């Protein structure tokens, strides 16, 4: 047994996401901590998972951690270098798409796992403008499992998104299906406080795990909408082995960890 090691919020977030990835998954990775989580899974618990990028690289070797999905580091020693249209087709087609798990970030999330990466305020004259969908809307539309990384703050866990960029369960119940989407969207939310999942029936977010030392009250106070915390248990903290691999093999340059 490992005893509890000191770890940073970013480290536990990467490990919580990595644990969700199964051997054989095709891991769609966005920018930043997403890449670290994908590499952690591959190096720790899912050696036969396949990392791939919307830009078209499949199963890149990743001798160095890439910092963008167009980083030249992803083009080296991949199984195939293709194009955006190919990469998204791989996810839209359920034959391959159903094996994909995506890791995304967002500025806002609501109780149904819908994401906003577009703006705060009015879309046409925004207070704060963000980067936009990128491939986020596409992935959330196509694949059965998505992990969202979020900072757990009230202004980010909101009752109503300023803009719905990437569909989750829309308005819950069967509204995602009614809109014409396949089952999918965000299925796991990983924050600096805990891990959330979604009720299979009504599509609402609930607290699955809280991190050691984090109170339910703190999570409650940092979430604008009502969230069921009754099923929550404490997360197993990162093990010594997990942290060692994360630090020494996934990001030795500490590009994301710092």
């Amino acid at each position, binding site marked *: 047994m490992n005893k509890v090691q000191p770890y940073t919020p970013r480290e536990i977030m990467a490990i919580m996401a990595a644990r969700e990835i199964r051997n054989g998954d095709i891991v769609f990775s966005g*920018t*930043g901590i997403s890449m670290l989580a994908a590499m952690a899974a591959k190096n720790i618990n899912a050696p036969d998972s396949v990392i791939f990028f*919307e*830009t*078209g*690289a499949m199963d890149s070797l990743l*001798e*160095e951690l890439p*910092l*963008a*999905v*167009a*980083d*030249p*580091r*992803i*083009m*080296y*020693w991949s199984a195939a*270098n*293709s*194009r*955006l*249209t190919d990469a*998204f087709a791989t996810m*839209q087609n*359920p034959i391959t798409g159903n094996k994909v798990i995506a890791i995304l970030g967002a500025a806002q999330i609501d109780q149904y796992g819908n994401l906003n990466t*577009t*703006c705060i305020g009015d*879309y*046409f*004259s*925004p*207070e704060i*403008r*963000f*980067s*936009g*969908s*990128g*491939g*986020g*809307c*596409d992935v959330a*539309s*196509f694949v059965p499992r998505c992990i969202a990384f979020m900072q757990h703050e009230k202004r980010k866990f909101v009752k109503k998104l300023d*803009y*719905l*960029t*990437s*569909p989750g369960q*829309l308005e819950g119940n069967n*509204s*995602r299906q009614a*809109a*014409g*989407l*396949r089952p999918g969207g965000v299925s796991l939310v990983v924050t600096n406080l805990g891990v959330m999942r979604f009720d299979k029936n009504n599509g609402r977010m609930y607290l699955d795990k809280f991190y050691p030392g984090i109170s339910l009250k703190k999570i409650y106070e940092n979430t604008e909408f009502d969230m069921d915390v009754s099923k929550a248990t404490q997360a197993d903290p990162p093990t010594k082995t997990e942290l060692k691999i994360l630090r020494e093999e996934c990001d030795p*340059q500490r*590009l994301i960890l710092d």
Partner: protein
Amino acid sequence: MTNRLNKVMPLEQAIEQYVKTGSHISIGGFTLNRNPMAAVYEIIRQKICNLHLYAHSNGTGLDELIGAGCVSKLEIAYAGNGKAAPTCIRFARAAQNNEILFEDYSNYMMSLRFMAGAMGVPFLPTLSGLGSDILTKWGFSKSLRKSDPKIVDNKLAVIDNPFGNWTGASKVVLVPAINPDITIIHVQKADAMGTCSIQGLAFADIEQVKASKHVIITCEKLVNKEELRQNPDLNQIPFIHVSAVCHVPMGAYPSAVFGHYDYDSQYLRKFTIAAKSPDEFRKYQEKYIYGVKDHKAFLNIIGRERIDAITADPRTGYSVNMKRD
């Protein structure tokens, strides 16, 4: 004629000839990779404005064009530039200050729109975006659309699947074709007729090129036809699509070119810091864009040391262990 034997010309001439005030334009690359930066800077120097820019995920080039006031309308999926700028600074300012009109799609939608243009069909279908605000919030008004024949009447359309529930889809989103007046991409190798070989990921460059009425290629290496013909499997763009070929070594700097050089993370960070302040940004532009004659002069300011630091390792195609901050 598209098969003139020699389309080589100086970049200044190609930009002057093919990029006009009000042109509908797209540029190649993705965030911090293979943006045709020499061409972008030349457009800025020539003060070509009122551009209608189509982008999926452009970063470096997009933010310079917007920062210089060249862009009045933008159709876009993503404006970010890696660690240096998760959201492009000048893009965000321009959107927040109502300095540009913009309309949002997703990356796949924008790629499909170029692909539809390349295929010569009015639209392509996708299952992306159902239920999202991308479908409901149109950045260009109905009246603007009606008044401008170069803008499609509907941002997109949702139809019931005419084949019942075939492939499990009940509804389908149709996204309209884009046929830019001009697309500019930067590639590793081209010959004088315009046949191109892109090494590494092609992003949506091929679709963008084939959708466009005119195409300018800037290239790291201008090679003999014979060199490209020896392996036609590596050439993604045959010459028939190309209008002009410009030999511009390091023409994507400060973005990366696989096999040649990495992105210059220091330059990108410097740009981001400058972009946050109007005064600093004017100084930045004066020094690096308006104050230099051409891309070669620009690279002279950057200097040998930075260029050596980002030069690609021949084994991996990027700069191994480069300090990326």
